[in-house]
């Protein structure tokens, strides 16, 4: 019987079956289940596959590169904005090349179900000049993983595999294949390509540029890029990744009459695109995310009005695609649709009942109510919901770690009451370096680390901060008398207000650690965390 797997799980199983030796990742919706699946896999345990979470996406990618350097197959997994954090090593390992197969899995979040932007990782693939794969369904997510590792070793380049939320979080039956053996340690013969001094880097960059022709040839003959020229030569469809499913859903049994180029491997197979272009009067580009392919087509051809898609305004420029939108652009019959009754009201997400963040926000709200010249800089995690009613505590929310550094910049500019609110795991991910900036100048900011001992938003994964926050803050140079602790409970509200008031009066760096475990943690998890804290202190 087929196994019923999420797109993310299919991909994870594919990586195990491709002979993976290690996965490195930081949790982030919609990518989290990939690593979790391997962590739970008995087979992965037997094969001693490394699965422990990393501190952030950059450290994860560098560790994956280290594993690849010694010749083993490694994978690094993140959400789209995580690739911004890892982009330094991402761009440079395209130049150095890899040794053991290395696949970078990035899950984009069109429609921003759980994200701050809709950035399209295919741009990064093009930017780094490496092959980029984009599965159209769960089975292909599995199959592409096996292919990606072979491709990576063949080209000696990292391969980018782009997922999108809908595919990551949708299940289907999967057929699995025979498992590939794990690689043995096999150090690179020439290590100079990994030492990117200018003279080596120039040579390597030339090599990368010269490989581009090969990359296009491979896309041309890839079994994952299929061109079918049908009887109809009016509209030619280019369907990328999951968009192919929305096209097929709509044309169903009329398939043979349509001309379709399915794209799941980039760089774009140029000859196939040309063939479709010559066969058809009009080209419809259907792609999830940014108009990456549509823009390329505008570069290829002069008759720009022949190309339809997001840039031409035929498809919505923002938000994710769905079968209804694609049906409309294909000009197919529309169903009569009932409206949502006006009695229905929105139900936005909110903090869980009994969540410690809520008590913390109540404390902050009481303190800042009496202050002028104030702002609360928030960060990424469950507590971001503190920017919404009824709490309305947080004023700014940009990226992992920005709370501390934005507060510092605002304080530099003269803001008297600059408060940063950051979670424990976000602090170790990207807050520590910013705190050192603030300590270095003794900037007048008050940093509250809302420590719930978990990476809560993505499902309460283990946080690298557990048991280490005090020592980290002292080590960075926070003055012991301005490193405070509070427990955000109703009964402590009065004394917590006082602590925050006092630290705001201090015109230097204060850190308040607000400690209360996430209500979503199980009793066993809480016990483990307690034991860990005791063993570390």
């Amino acid at each position, binding site marked *: 019987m087929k196994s019923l797997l999420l797109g993310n799980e299919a991909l994870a199983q594919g990586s195990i079956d491709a002979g993976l030796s290690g996965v490195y990742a930081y949790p982030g919706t919609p990518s989290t289940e990939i690593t979790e699946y391997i962590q739970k896999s008995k087979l992965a345990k037997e094969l001693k596959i490394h699965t422990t979470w990393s501190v952030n996406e950059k450290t994860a990618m560098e560790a994956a590169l280290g594993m690849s350097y010694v010749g083993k197959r490694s994978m690094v997994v993140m959400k789209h904005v995580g690739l911004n954090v890892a982009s330094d090593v991402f761009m440079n390992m395209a130049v150095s090349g890899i040794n053991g197969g290395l696949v970078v899995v990035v899950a984009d979040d069109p429609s921003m179900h759980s994200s701050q932007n809709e950035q399209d990782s295919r741009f990064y693939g093009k930017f780094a000049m490496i092959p980029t794969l984009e599965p159209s369904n769960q089975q292909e997510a599995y199959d592409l993983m096996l292919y990606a590792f072979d491709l990576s070793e063949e080209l000696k380049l990292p391969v980018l595999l782009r997922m999108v939320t*809908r595919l990551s979080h949708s299940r289907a039956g999967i057929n699995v294949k025979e498992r590939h053996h794990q690689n043995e340690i096999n150090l690179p013969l020439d290590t100079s390509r990994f030492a990117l001094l200018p003279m080596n880097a120039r040579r390597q960059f030339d090599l990368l540029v010269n490989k581009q022709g090969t990359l296009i040839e491979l896309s041309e003959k890839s079994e994952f890029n299929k061109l079918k020229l049908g009887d109809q030569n009016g509209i030619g469809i280019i369907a990328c990744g999951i968009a192919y499913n929305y096209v097929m859903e709509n044309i169903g049994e009329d398939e043979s009459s349509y001309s379709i180029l399915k794209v799941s491997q980039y760089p774009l197979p140029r000859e196939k695109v040309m063939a479709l272009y010559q066969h058809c009067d009009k080209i419809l580009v259907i792609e999830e995310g940014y108009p990456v392919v549509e823009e390329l087509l505008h570069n290829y051809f002069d008759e720009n009005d022949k190309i339809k898609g997001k840039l031409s305004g035929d498809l919505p420029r923002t938000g994710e695609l769905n079968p209804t939108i694609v049906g409309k652009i294909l000009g197919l019959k529309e169903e009569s649709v009932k409206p949502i009754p006006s009695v229905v009201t929105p139900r936005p997400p909110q903090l869980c009942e009994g969540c410690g963040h809520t008590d913390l926000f109540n404390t902050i709200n009481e303190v800042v109510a009496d202050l002028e010249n104030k702002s609360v800089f928030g960060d990424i995690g469950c507590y971001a919901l503190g920017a919404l009613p009824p709490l309305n505590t947080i004023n700014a929310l940009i990226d992992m770690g920005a709370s501390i550094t934005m507060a510092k910049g605002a304080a530099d500019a003269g803001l008297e009451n600059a408060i940063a609110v950051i979670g424990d795991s976000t602090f170790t991910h990207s807050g520590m370096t910013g705190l050192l900036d603030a300590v270095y100048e003794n900037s007048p900011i008050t940093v509250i680390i809302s420590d719930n001992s978990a990476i809560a938003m993505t499902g309460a994964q283990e946080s690298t901060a557990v048991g280490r926050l005090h020592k980290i803050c002292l080590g960075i140079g926070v003055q012991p008398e301005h490193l405070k602790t509070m427990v955000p409970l109703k009964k402590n509200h009065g004394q917590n207000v006082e602590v925050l008031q006092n630290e705001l009066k201090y015109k230097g760096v204060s850190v308040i650690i607000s400690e209360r475990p996430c209500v979503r943690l199980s009793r066993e998890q809480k016990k483990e965390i307690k034991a860990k804290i005791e063993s570390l202190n």
Partner: protein
Amino acid sequence: MKTNIILSGVGGQGILTIAAVLDTAALSENLFIKQSEVHGMSQRGGAVQSHVRISDKEIFSDLIPEGKADLILSVEPMELLRYLPFLKEDGWLVTDSEPFVNTNNYPDKNDLFDQIKKHPNNIIINATEIAKSIGNSKAANMVLLGAASATLPLSEESLLAAITELFQHKSERITNLNREAFFEGKKVAEDFTNLATKK
């Protein structure tokens, strides 16, 4: 044969368990299945839905097109109405009558019921109460699955086998309570629909 089902509710109400029963039953009948779900931020007390598609042929889209759902099965009445644009002309609406109120502008529940009753094929039952009466308030989702079972393309045997498969690791008692919840839901729905036709 292709059946499109939307499951809806509020994060944490157990719609993914209903989805898991449908998936397991469909696979055991060698059918194709696609089932999308919501992870991440919305799970925190927000509106969540799952699209479940079951067919004897390959399924392409993970999402159901608007106007193509045969059934919207909701564990909460307002969340049922949120997905009305997906309902087929002759599709079924099945919901728990018990509101989950976590916003300060939640509508009057009778206004919700009025909207639901505008559609001829509806089943509104107090699944929460039924589940409580058999001694497992968490089994409201299985009560609703039982209530909707007559509209599904899956046999009762495979649905029950799936319930057993999914709950047996907990305990025999919990497995039986969930099976009982399924039967209670089925029975109440039969009474409800008979009543509706008589009227």
